[in-house]
């Protein structure tokens, strides 16, 4: 698989253990896409808008954004809202990783247009399965919509 042709996966997760587990799971299923990890919503937005530390990044929008709800600074809901209200970004598939059904209800209630959500399972194997399915589906199977535009600051 040509790694250059694969678009990045953006993982926004503040908990390093969850990051590790997620990466392990993706790795286990041999997801070859580069995974960009940011620790909060603000960095995620920086990445998407190519600013701050990501001011000089190249490449397209990520293939999928895996977004934790509860993060410092800017939380996952805010990131989702900003992305879905921006015509340049709203085609990016957004997957919400939630810790509980409670959060799941919350996300649905907001109606912000998440493309999928995953309740992080307690049983690791299930978790691996869930993350892998998501990763493969969005990163590999699903044809991304044509690009509307890249770069720029909001």
């Amino acid at each position, binding site marked *: 698989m040509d790694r250059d042709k694969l678009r990045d996966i953006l993982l926004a997760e503040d908990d390093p*253990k969850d990051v590790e*587990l997620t990466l392990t799971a993706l790795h286990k299923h041999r997801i070859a896409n580069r995974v960009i990890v940011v620790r909060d919503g603000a960095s995620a937005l920086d990445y998407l808008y190519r600013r701050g530390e990501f001011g000089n990044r190249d490449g397209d929008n990520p293939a999928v954004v895996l977004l934790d709800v509860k993060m410092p600074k800017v939380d996952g809901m805010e990131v989702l809202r900003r992305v879905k209200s921006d015509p340049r970004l709203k085609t990016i598939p957004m997957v919400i990783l939630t810790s509980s059904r*409670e959060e799941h209800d919350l996300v649905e209630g907001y109606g912000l247009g998440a493309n999928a959500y995953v309740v992080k399972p307690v049983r690791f194997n299930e978790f691996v399965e869930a993350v892998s399915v998501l990763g493969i589906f969005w990163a590999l199977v699903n044809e991304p919509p044509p690009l509307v535009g890249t770069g720029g600051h909001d």
Partner: protein
Amino acid sequence: MISRLRRWKSGRRQLAGYTAALLLAAAAQVARLPLNPPTLIPFITFVPFIVLSAAFGGIRPGLLTTALCVLESLYFATEPLYSWGVRDPQDWLGVGTLLCTGVVICFLFERVEKGRLADAAARELRVLLNQTSDAVFVWDLESKRITFWDEGATRLCGYPSHEALGRYPKELLQTQFPESLEACLAAARQSDGWRGELAHTTRDHGPITVESRMSVRQSDDGTLRVIEVARDISERKRLEHIQAQLAREQELRRQTLESIVHNSPICIALLRDPDFTFESVNSAYQALLPGDLMVGRTVAEVWPDAAPLVLPLLQVVRDAQTVYHATEMPIPRKRSPEGPLEELYFDFSYVPLLSPSGDVRILVSAIEMTRYKLAAEELRKSLIELQQSEEQVRSLAAIVESSDDAIIGTTTEGIITSWNCGAERIYGYPKEEVLGLPVTILVPPDNSDGPRRILDRIRRNERVEHFEATRRCKHGQRVVMSLAISPVKDGSGRVVGVSAIGRDITERKLAEAKILELNEALRTKARCSEEDLESFSYSVSHDLRAPIRHIAGFLALLEDHIGGSLDETGRHYLSNVMESTRLMSALIDDLLTFSRTGKVEMCEANVCLQDLVQQVQRELTADIHGRKVVWTVEPLPEVAADPVLLRLVLVNLLGNAIKYSNNRSEAAIDIGCREVDDEWVIFVRDNGVGFDMRYMHKLFGVFQRLHSADEFEGTGIGLAIVRRIVARHGGRTWAEGVVGQGATFYFSLPKVAGMQTCAIGTEPTEPIPEATRG
């Protein structure tokens, strides 16, 4: 008989006459015997006897005696003696003389006797005339003089006969003839005479009326006499006059009475036998049934509806001949043949009238009282109403007077006209001090305009809403009043005054302010608690789960990593840690559910319990793990509940039934529903391990378990969730069980929705026991 007797009497007299004649003739012969020879003189002796015979017996016996004496003289006294022959022609002269003398004597006596009889008859006649009451007088037509005047005439006219005789009666009596005297006389000349009434004037007593008969007769001397017989009929005329007058009066009275009866507003009718037939009715009676002729018809025909009521009465009146009176008797009848049957009220009387022939007729007189009856009824009602309203007014007045509220009446200009005790108490002004003053004395200076605006609105008949206002009391302190101002209207709806009802709410306002303050504080507190709870739930769901997840995740990785090199004990430890991690995660999930069931808004709907049970059965199939479970689900109703929460109840109860019956090779689970009063009671029965009823109270508590975790997995929260959900629906939960024989869990749901939409804190059942962890 009398005539025969009379005839016999006269016959006897005649016989006596004739006998006397014979005897006298014989006596004459005897008397002549000494005178012999017979001469003329002896003939003379016969004459006295002839006279005697004529005087005694009348003309015929006289003539008989004469004849006998002639024969005697021819036979005995003329030569030849004792023979009928006569020798001497002179004797013929003597016999002839005797005969002539006898005949003359007889006729003379006859004449004298006749005159005597006529005189006697005239005397008798006069007596007779005098004895009659009639006046009889005779006057000469030519000389016009009265020739006869009897005592009756004297009595009648007052003139004695010596004054009347010789006078012209027309002048004497100033007679008024119906036509003329001549006409009367002309009629009087006829055989029947004239008969008629005349008016005379009497000597002393003025005019009289007489019934007169007048006839003209020719008297013996050839003069024409007018015989007038008059009878005083003045009295009769007077009586006739009176009688006529009486008759006229009677007729007038009869007509008056008839007119009264006919035109009377009282209905009058006369009934006669048979069958009480109407003989006559007056117009008022006829008007009871206009256009329907009553006379000649019977009561039963005319009043078919009322007949059963009145006929018995009529019979009693007829048979007992008593008068019957009725007052305001309801009589069923129709006003017209097609009209509805209605009850009319009549005052009426039946009076029996007995006719001379013995028939009884009944006089009916009736007045329809329906209008008066109804009016009286109305009047009575309105009197009662009046009484009631008076009582009401009195009691209202008493209420007003004793009310704790200030009730003030004012004119439309705001001048106080009434002031109750409440007003006195609240505002401090005694009644006598405040009457006649303007209501503005109660208004603080900073709002002196308020009452004027309100009065303006009241006068314009606008509605004034209940409002609150500050008022000033007598001594200057202020009170907050809740005021209701309303117009007082007279009968025609004109606003004539204003009533103001005020309640002192100063204290209430203070209390309200305090309550508001407290409420605000509580609300803040509650908001804080709610927020705390939410952040707690959030922490639990997110922060508490993350480490668990990490433990589980890394344990899995560790197992991958070193699993192969671990010995039996190591793998056991690792397995224990993983199991505990899972339990911890389940506990967290259940606790979250429990807290959410008390918090979420309930959404009521009609839920088909049957369908819901089937869904849950399918859902729980995995938990059966291939065991044999016999489900018995009775027909279940549709209930009013929140479908999501009710499903949670069933998941827990059915799940428990499956779980706690896993000791049976064949588990039997029954689900059913009973209708008890206004509730549905739903039960879930299993034949599992059951429970000890002594611990029933612990069943529905949080973290309460009757079985060890070794025997049955579980968090001890499921039944607590069930109880909380059922309670929020307004129902109850309970259970029955026998150790080793199974358990039955019941919950009830009200048929009409009794759901509480409130949040935590309204738990109606026993408090959840302190969570015990072990």
